[in-house]
């Protein structure tokens, strides 16, 4: 039996993204959603771990939950998986209201803890068989699914070994296998590659990317390059608050910098100098920097005028170009622009951002 939380209106329609003049958010997602949360808050005494989170995760997406340590990512996942209860707000996962003792909710979800723990006395295959049985698999279907998941995560050779003897990477892959085993509609992966070496990291990220269109994946991390590799939509949290939520491409496009990079073919020194002088006297250009290798980095005040006029100016100066591009920001650039770097005062002894506190 499924039930929606009171006060939650499921959205419908297609995905629309925010423009550059406003902050993107969950209301921009109007397609089939796997997760729908409104006003989720979590306090521990005076500590605010999560503050009024609104979130919609499109069905079938690989959704990145980003933020520095202590931003509220794990708290969000713990609430959505029914391990913790919100102080305020409500959410549905696969249309089922989240709550602590809700087996019908967990039928739809898989979960990997950021520090996955298992029974050391159990063998890898036994754990997956247990999880499969709990998920309703039996007989040949159970054996086939366990075998397939062991293959997929590269654990077949160690399936009969006790988990107590597994390496950190093996445990992480076993964690992913158990999260996916009963073919859940939604999978929550909390920092899935944090303890892996580069090779293991690559393998796990490829495995997650392969889940696209197969299941909805929510992956939390503070490693932005990982998100850029696999996610198609992201939410950025900072100190328990949602800073933005948007499709990754749109987020990058919205925060594209008004900077162009030009590189001339070799042997055009005088023409490039002429171009540089002309550009520096152009009113819609705020800065022209000569970079190593003969490149020019041009900061413009009006990207629309620049898009129409910059290339003709280059041609007019007689410069033959090897490279002409608008500099695309990385997710890290966007993240730092939106969240900023914490000051030393804002960090605790473990490198976590100090949570916000309110009067009780």
């Amino acid at each position, binding site marked *: 039996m499924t039930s929606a939380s009171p006060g939650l209106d499921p959205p419908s329609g297609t995905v629309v993204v925010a423009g550059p003049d406003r902050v993107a958010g969950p209301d921009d997602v109007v397609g089939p959603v796997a997760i729908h949360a409104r006003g989720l808050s979590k306090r521990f005494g005076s500590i605010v771990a999560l503050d009024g989170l609104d979130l919609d995760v499109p069905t079938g997406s690989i959704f990145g939950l980003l933020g520095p340590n202590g931003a509220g990512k794990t708290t969000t996942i713990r609430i959505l998986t029914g*391990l913790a209860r919100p102080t305020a707000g409500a959410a549905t996962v696969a249309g089922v209201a989240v709550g602590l003792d809700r087996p019908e909710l967990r039928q739809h979800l898989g979960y990997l803890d950021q520090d996955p723990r298992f029974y050391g006395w159990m063998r890898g295959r036994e754990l997956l068989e*247990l999880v499969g049985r*709990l998920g309703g698999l039996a007989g040949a279907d159970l054996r086939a699914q366990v075998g397939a998941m062991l293959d997929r995560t590269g654990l077949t050779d160690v399936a009969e070994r006790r988990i107590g003897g597994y390496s950190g990477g093996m445990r992480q892959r076993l964690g992913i296998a158990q999260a996916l085993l009963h073919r859940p509609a939604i999978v929550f992966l909390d920092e899935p590659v944090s303890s892996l070496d580069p090779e293991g990291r690559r393998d796990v990220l490829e495995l997650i990317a392969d889940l696209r269109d197969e299941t909805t994946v929510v992956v939390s991390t503070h490693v932005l390059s990982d998100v850029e590799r696999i996610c198609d939509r992201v939410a950025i949290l900072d100190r328990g608050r949602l800073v933005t939520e948007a499709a990754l491409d749109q987020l990058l496009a919205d925060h594209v910098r008004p900077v162009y990079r030009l590189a001339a073919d070799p042997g055009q020194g005088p023409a490039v100098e002429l171009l540089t002088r002309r550009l520096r006297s152009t009113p819609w250009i705020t800065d022209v920097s000569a970079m190593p290798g003969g490149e020019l980095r041009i900061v413009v005040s009006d990207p629309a005028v620049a898009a129409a006029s910059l290339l003709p100016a280059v041609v007019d100066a007689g410069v033959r170009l090897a490279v002409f591009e608008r500099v695309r920001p990385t997710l890290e650039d966007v993240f730092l622009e939106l969240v900023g770097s914490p000051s030393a005062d804002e960090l605790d002894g473990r490198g976590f951002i100090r949570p916000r506190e309110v009067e009780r």
Partner: protein
Amino acid sequence: MAGLGPLLRKELLEQWRTLRLPVVATIFLLVGLSSPLLARFTPEILKAVGGDQFTISLPTPTAADAVDQLAKNVGQFGGLIAVLLAMGAVATEKERGTAALLLTKPVSRGAFLVAKLVAIGLTLAVSVAIATAGAWFYTLVLFAPLPVPGIAAGAALQWLTLMAWASITFVGSTLTRSSLAAAGLGIVAFIVVGILGVVPNVGRFLPTGLGGPGRALALGIPGPDPVVPTVATIVLIGVAGLTAWLAFRRQEL
């Protein structure tokens, strides 16, 4: 009770694989075998220890002494083992994070608790049965045969008493993340109930009230009515289980 079957299977496998069942069963077997021996040879042992310096006059040991010795030993060692079995059942899983592994699967928290309590109960049942069988055999050899249905019924009552200590400890294990705190609750209950058990008209409503009826059943002689302490102990176990469930279903992991 979603997931009870697979969870119970896991708990029983854990009892075996972590050697809890073999170790506990072996201890109980030793207790069962040694009880009639102690009853039979205590006068000789005391005589040998005392030598010619003093004389102790003891009645000739009987099968009743063997049964009393068994009840005392299983009650003490078994009670302690029941507390040890239950103290980490939930607390350790919460503390290590394995509870979160299972409880993000389609299982109810009630099933999680019931599977654990049943597994503890089965381990204690097997162990008490082994201890009783060993004691019955040596009583037969050293004294006289005891009625099998009677001693089986007495063993069942003894198991019920141990389950009471395990259940109270289990509540502590559910309420806290500390196995030691859970054990503390179990031991305090063990002591307090033991003291209250000697209060007239109170003892028969407590698990310790099962001792008298159990002895009588084992020896095949008339004795106190077992119904009241049996029902009271079953109610106590039920209340403990209910308390654990009510607390656990509201806990964050």
